[in-house]
């Protein structure tokens, strides 16, 4: 935590030097346990408000700037995310979860509009325009996926120049959206150095989308300095990813994991069967793997982006003190050390690589403990109804924690609020309080809007809060199913905001807006909801069945209804007996002719 706050203060220092340079970039690398590597890229540039109004763009990308102006968006947060953050192994989320997004695409913005309808219209324009810019189908964010969160999100920018009742916060999420290289390309195009030089040259779709967890974030906010000078509009682009080192080091032409040849495996020699052809691999948990930027990313950092400020270190590596790290480059570069941090400034024109060799160290980095662990699943079975179960754990032994839990559910998942129960289980059985402080709820309207559920909870020290509620599933119309309907429908992740001040157990409700700094965010995973899916070949089946029934049944029933039934002997005319009689007569006539002829001869 201390280390990260140091880094945070470093970046804050940088932001105060806006006159020196308008563009800053930074890469923080932190190896995590179990051979994982957290790489946090940050790119920040800004423009003055007057230049923005006049549409003179320099470091701020013009395409995004025009969209923001056109839709009167004052603050924008856009996230593309994949994977799951393993909080038990990796600790707290980087940047306090402020740059994390839910799986898929998540977008929230403060829009300046006079009325609600105007804000909604501008929101729809914003989602359409962003879908064109970022090659993502964000135009699917319409009224069924949009909510107006009450207290979960706080403004990061300074909006003192706009009247607060005109700022509308709207939030939309697409959990099923695929995030792939075509989303990375426009992201890189927004950067001044365009992924050609500097740390952005490491960003490659092959490695980024193979990560265990990654988020691409774009945040635009107004920054007004305290001395009353001109406001700035800052764009902050962040790429955070957790890579598995071994997996990333597989060569791209042959990424299929294959066992190493026996000569390269460290064998546990204490085993009785150890021999030249039998090997029990030794436990490698204490060993820190060898890796280098070139091996992990497939390429070294190509020089530095010349637009950045020279004095701030661009690459920061957070490793235990005894770790052996070498920076390699053809040109000279500056490096320094501060505690666990190794700071590097990139050389101007030459490739830069960081190499770490395999080591077993006694000390390891202490990871910051997250304030809350959260997970969420479905319960129940069947296609009619189900239940939601969310488990929030406060690991801290002494302080209680207040959280705000936000869920935006699709309309076909209808929760019953009266079944909402929150129970505490933990070390102190005497605590009988209700952890639920307040509930903000907006029910869904079929096919028009989804459910908005926002809960304020207090989790006592060292205990677990279990939230459950029951819901019913709707049956959709035939045309509303997607082409791969049997996969199920995605439900957006729950967003949990951990409020900074520890609350006493007496407080019943918390004013949400009074906390500006210090909240951390975390998100659960998205869920897959199986809905009752029809058999899509049913129209064909119906046609065939109906036609068969008609073919077989209609004729008989019609005859039963219409025909007059008489006895067989009452019928004259050609019947079978009459036919037989005629045939008999014919044969007799023939025989008679031949017989008669014979008889005549005899006579």
């Amino acid at each position, binding site marked *: 935590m201390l280390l990260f706050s140091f880094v945070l203060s470093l970046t804050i220092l940088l932001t105060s030097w806006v006159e020196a340079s308008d563009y800053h970039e930074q890469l923080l690398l932190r190896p995590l346990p179990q051979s994982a590597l957290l790489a946090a890229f940050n790119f920040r540039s800004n423009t003055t408000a007057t230049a923005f109004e006049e549409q003179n763009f320099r470091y701020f990308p013009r395409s995004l700037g025009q969209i923001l102006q056109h839709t009167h968006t004052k603050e924008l947060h856009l996230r593309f995310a994949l994977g799951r953050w393993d909080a038990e192994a990796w600790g707290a989320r980087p940047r306090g979860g402020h740059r994390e997004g839910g799986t898929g695409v998540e977008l929230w913005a403060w829009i300046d509009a006079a009325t609600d309808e105007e804000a909604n*219209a501008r929101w729809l324009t914003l989602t359409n325009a962003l*879908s064109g810019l970022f090659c993502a189908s964000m*135009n699917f964010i319409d009224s069924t996926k949009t909510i*107006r969160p009450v207290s979960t999100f706080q403004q990061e920018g300074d909006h003192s120049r706009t009247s607060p009742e005109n700022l509308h916060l709207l939030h939309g999420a697409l959990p099923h959206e695929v995030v792939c*290289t075509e989303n990375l390309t426009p992201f890189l195009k927004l950067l001044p150095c365009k992924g050609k030089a500097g740390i952005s040259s490491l960003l490659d779709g092959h490695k980024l989308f193979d990560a265990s967890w990654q988020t691409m974030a774009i945040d635009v906010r107004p920054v007004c300095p305290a001395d009353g000078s001109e406001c700035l509009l800052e764009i902050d682009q962040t790429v955070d990813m957790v890579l598995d080192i071994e997996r990333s080091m597989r060569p791209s032409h042959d990424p299929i994991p294959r066992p190493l040849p026996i000569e390269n495996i460290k064998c546990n020699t204490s085993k009785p069967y150890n021999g030249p052809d039998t090997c029990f691999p030794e436990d490698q948990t204490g060993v820190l793997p060898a890796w280098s930027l070139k091996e992990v990313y497939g390429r070294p950092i190509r020089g530095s982006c010349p637009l950045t400020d020279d004095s701030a270190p661009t690459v920061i590596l957070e490793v235990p003190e005894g770790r052996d790290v070498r920076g390699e480059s053809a040109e000279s570069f500056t490096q320094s050390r501060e505690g666990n941090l190794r700071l590097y400034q990139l050389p101007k024109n030459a490739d830069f690589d960081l190499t770490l060799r395999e080591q077993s160290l006694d000390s390891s980095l202490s990871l910051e403990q997250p304030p809350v662990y959260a997970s969420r699943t479905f319960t129940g079975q069947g296609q009619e109804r189900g239940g939601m179960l969310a488990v929030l754990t406060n690991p801290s032994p002494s302080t209680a924690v207040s959280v705000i839990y936000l869920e935006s559910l699709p309309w076909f998942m209808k929760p019953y609020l009266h079944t909402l129960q929150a129970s505490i289980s933990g070390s102190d059985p005497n605590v009988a309080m209700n952890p639920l402080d307040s509930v903000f709820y907006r029910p869904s309207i079929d096919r028009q809007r989804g459910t908005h559920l926002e809960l304020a909870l207090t989790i006592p020290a060292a205990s677990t809060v279990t939230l459950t509620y029951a819901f019913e599933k709707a049956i959709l119309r035939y045309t509303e199913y997607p082409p791969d309907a049997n996969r199920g429908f995605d439900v957006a992740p729950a967003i949990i905001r951990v409020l900074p001040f520890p609350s006493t157990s007496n407080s019943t409700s918390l004013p949400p807006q009074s906390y500006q700094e210090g909240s951390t965010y975390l998100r659960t995973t998205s869920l897959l909801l199986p809905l009752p899916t029809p058999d899509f070949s049913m129209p064909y089946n119906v046609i065939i069945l109906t036609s068969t029934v008609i073919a077989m049944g209609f004729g008989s029933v019609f005859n039963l209804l219409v025909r007059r039934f008489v006895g067989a002997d009452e019928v004259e005319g050609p019947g079978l007996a009459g036919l037989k009689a005629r045939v008999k007569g014919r044969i007799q006539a023939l025989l008679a002719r031949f017989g008669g002829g014979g008889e005549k001869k005899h006579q």
Partner: protein
Amino acid sequence: MFASGLPGEFSGVNGVGISSTAKPKREDLGLTKPYVPPLTLTGYDNPVPTSAGPKHVAYIFKSLAMKFTTLYALLLAAVLPYLTTATHTSNWAVLVSTSRFWFNYRHLANVLSLYRTVKRLGIPDSQIILMLPDDMACNPRNTFPGSVFNDKSRGLDLYDDQGEEGMGGIEVDYRGYEVTVENFIRLLTDRWPADYPRSKRLMTDDRSNILIYMTGHGGNEFLKFQDAEEISSFDLADAFEQMWEKKRYHELLFMIDTCQANTMYSAFYTPNIISTGSSAIHQSSYSHHADQDVGVAVIDRWTYYNLEFLETQITSTSSNVTLGQLFDSYDPVKVHSDAGIRYDLFEGGEATARNRKVVDFFGNVQAVEVDGEKGQEGSLAEWRKDLEALNNLIERQRVVMNELRNDSKPLAVKADNDNAEATVSPEKGGKGLFGGAKMVDQDYSWAKKALGAGALLALGSLWGLGSWMDR
């Protein structure tokens, strides 16, 4: 832009016949009247009912149609000699894959290979519409994350954004569930609601050549979109007809790689389309080969041989290879199906169509006009004087404009669609839809429960009373 002829008349006037395999289901408009109103642009000579309600629309249309078609018949006659020499000024490509799921990897590889070719030959991303219904590169089943290959040697990664300098990355315009028949037809006919992003629209004009490539699973006169719906060849023909009416293309090359592909273009009836398909009726199109590590087939045969030709024969943007040579390279023995080509809709027939260069459709034309030598200081000084004079002129004009504006107030000539701001349409997002959440009163008091029970009891007794009194 003024010299292009009139759409509907081609079928009758120009003599470019529709092939006998097309099904002529539409009647001609019946242009009979040779009456030509005098061209003074002062108004119409035929009276038009001014208070036309919706029922009069047909009448309006008919009278307009007759008026304008006769006008245009003459226009056509006059400008016909200029048509054949008009060339195109921009190139667009619409590349559509229509199948979803991992085992249809090869269809996306087909489209991405064509995408790469078209970009290599110069068409910028802003003029390419790429529709991919599923994601193969970042699919969890993909052994090679972030990569799509079209060959088992895996030498070329179709999804590589920075491997080849200057390719500029991949930009997909329509992904996932957006690839639907409706969106495709809207794309072709440009019928979008307002504020639809420009990068997803086909902004062509009458001088644009368009390459349309479609691949997926198809059958006799239909093409399946994402395993859920289908587009018929008649819908496609109608969409092209609407494009032709609105002068949205100059020439169109339509390529399709599905089973029974040739049936898909048999219904076209608008001029200036060259169509080619991978297999004839009752024939299937086959995949070329599979990659054992990827696990599925990676390219289709017909597309493979097309790409082979394009990669080996067309190496630069100024190549002179003709379409005829491309079509001649289709070998039924290699492709395992009879690829077909349709020339009859093209103006000039087979000969002209075969003489068109491949880069006319696959590459980008960008004519350039070099300015003359710019004078030095002398012209600059002159220019500054000009600017001063211009400033004075502007002042005078401003006065005149103000007068004009005052005059025109009762006429209400303000253009409706002039503002660049986001238009506010009250239909979008009605009041109740986006309203915020309200705090829920968690007072589970006994009073409410008592009230509820009491109400239930009262109603139950009322019902009992009613049924007792009924007896």
